C-alpha cells in the first residue's frame, strides 16, 4: 500500500483556490509576488495530485452491537 501523504486535502485545495482567486483580484499584479504565489500553487497542486493517486479507502467495521436503549 502506498504510504499516505499527510496533507489535509480540503485545506490545501482551499489554499490553491485562494491563490487562483488572488491572481484575478490583483488590480496590478506584482510580478515578484505573482511568481511566489505561482510557486506555492505548483507545490500545492503537485501535493494534491499525489494525494489523488491514493487508491485505498480504509473501511472499519465498528465493533459494537447497535440496539435501542
Amino acid at each position, binding site marked *: 500500500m502506498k504510504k*499516505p501523504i499527510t496533507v489535509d*486535502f*480540503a485545506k490545501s*485545495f482551499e489554499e*490553491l*483556490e485562494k*491563490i*487562483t482567486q488572488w*491572481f*484575478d483580484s490583483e488590480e496590478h*499584479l506584482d*510580478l515578484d509576488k*505573482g*511568481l511566489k*504565489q*505561482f510557486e506555492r*500553487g*505548483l507545490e500545492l*497542486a503537485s501535493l*494534491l*495530485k499525489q*494525494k*489523488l*493517486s*491514493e*487508491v*485505498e*479507502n*480504509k*473501511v*472499519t*467495521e*465498528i465493533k*459494537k*452491537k*447497535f*440496539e*435501542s*436503549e
Partner: protein
Amino acid sequence: MEPVILHVADYLSLLNEVLHDRVPSNEILIEGEVSDYRVAQQKWVSFDLKDEKAEAVLKCFATTWQITTPIEDGMRVHVKGFPKMYERFGTLKLNVQSIEPIGEGALKRAYDLLKKKLEAEGLFDVSRKRTLPRFPKKIGLITSRDAAAYGDFLRIVNNRWGGIEIDHAHVHVQGREAVGEILGAFRYFNMLPVEDRPDAIVLTRGGGGLEDLHAFNDEQVARAVYQSLIPVVVAVGHERDESLADYVADIRASTPSNAAERVVPSRADVKYELDMMMRHQEQQLQFVMDEYRTAADRMATKVGHILERERDRLLMMQTRLQDRAQSWLPALRDVIESSARLLRQVDPTRILARGYAIVRVGGAVVRDASELAVGRELAIQLGTGSLDAEVLRINGKGKQKLV
C-alpha cells in the same frame, strides 16, 4: 371438595396471575382491525381490536409512547401485549406493547399520516438542510453488510476517491431489530468526540415495498436523522422508492451508488479542476510577464536613443576641441619661443662670458665689500672655470658703490 371462597379482588388477581403465567404474550401477535381509537389527555390510548368476520372484540389500552406509527380506525394491525383484568371496571383489556399496521393499504395510510405530521412539524424544511464538505475525511456508513447497497456504495466510493476512512455500522435494515439498531448507530456516531465524528452519515439500503422499508419510514428514525449533528445522506433502493428518512435527510440520494457520488468527489473532476486552476494562474502570470517585457523593450529602445544622442554630442565636442586646439597651438608656440629667448638673454653664464665674475663667500653671493673681512676665502666664478682667493684689503669700506 370444599369450595374456596375468594373476594372479588383476590379472584381477579388470581385470574391475572394465570393470564400472566399461562399466556405466552411475548410470542403472540394479535391481528385485527382498529376501531373506536381514542387518545385521552394526549397520553392514554384506547381502542377496540376487532375481527372483521367473527364478532369478537378485544379492548386495548396503551400510552402514546408505545404507538410509534399513526393509527386510525379501520386499519389492520398486529398488536403485541399482555392481557389484564381491570378490577375497577371488571373488564379484560390488552395492555399494548407495540402495534404495527399490516397490509399495503394500512401501511400506506400510516405512512401518509406520519408524513403529514412530520412535514407540519418542519422536519422536511429545505432551509435546515446542510451541505456536505466537498472533501470528506471520514464517512459513517449505516447499512447491513449483507445488503447489495453496502457493496454498491463502497465500490463507487473506491472508484471515485481514495484516502478516506469509512466507519461502517452494521445494522439490520429491515425486520424487528432494524429500528433499534439504526437509532443506536446514529447515537453512536453523534456521541463521538467532535474530532472523531465523520463528516457525513450515509444511511442506505436497497429498494423494497412499504413493509421492507418500515425502518426507513419509522418516526424515531426520521427524528434521529433530523436530530443528527452530522449531516445525513439517505439512499433507498431504486430511483422511485421514497422513505420518510429520505425527506428528512440533508441529502436525498436516489440509490446507494448515487449516495457515493454525492459524498465523495471524483478524481477526474478534481484533477481537471487542479489543472484548470494552474493553467489560469500561469496565464495570468504570463500576461503580466508579457506586460513587463513590452515595458522593458520600450525602455531599452528609449535608453538606446539617449545613448546615441550622447555619443553624437561627445563626437561633436571632440571635433570642436580639436579645431580649437589647431588654432591655439601656433600662438602657444610663439609665446613659448619668446619666453625662451628672454630666458636666454638673462642667463648669468652669458654675462660671465662677457668678463664678469661672481664672488661667493661660503656659497653666498657677495654684493658689498664691507661684508668681507681680510683673510676671508672667496670663491670666484668666471665665464669659464672658477678659482678660490683670499681677501688682502678692503677698499672704501662701506662708502663707495660701484654700480
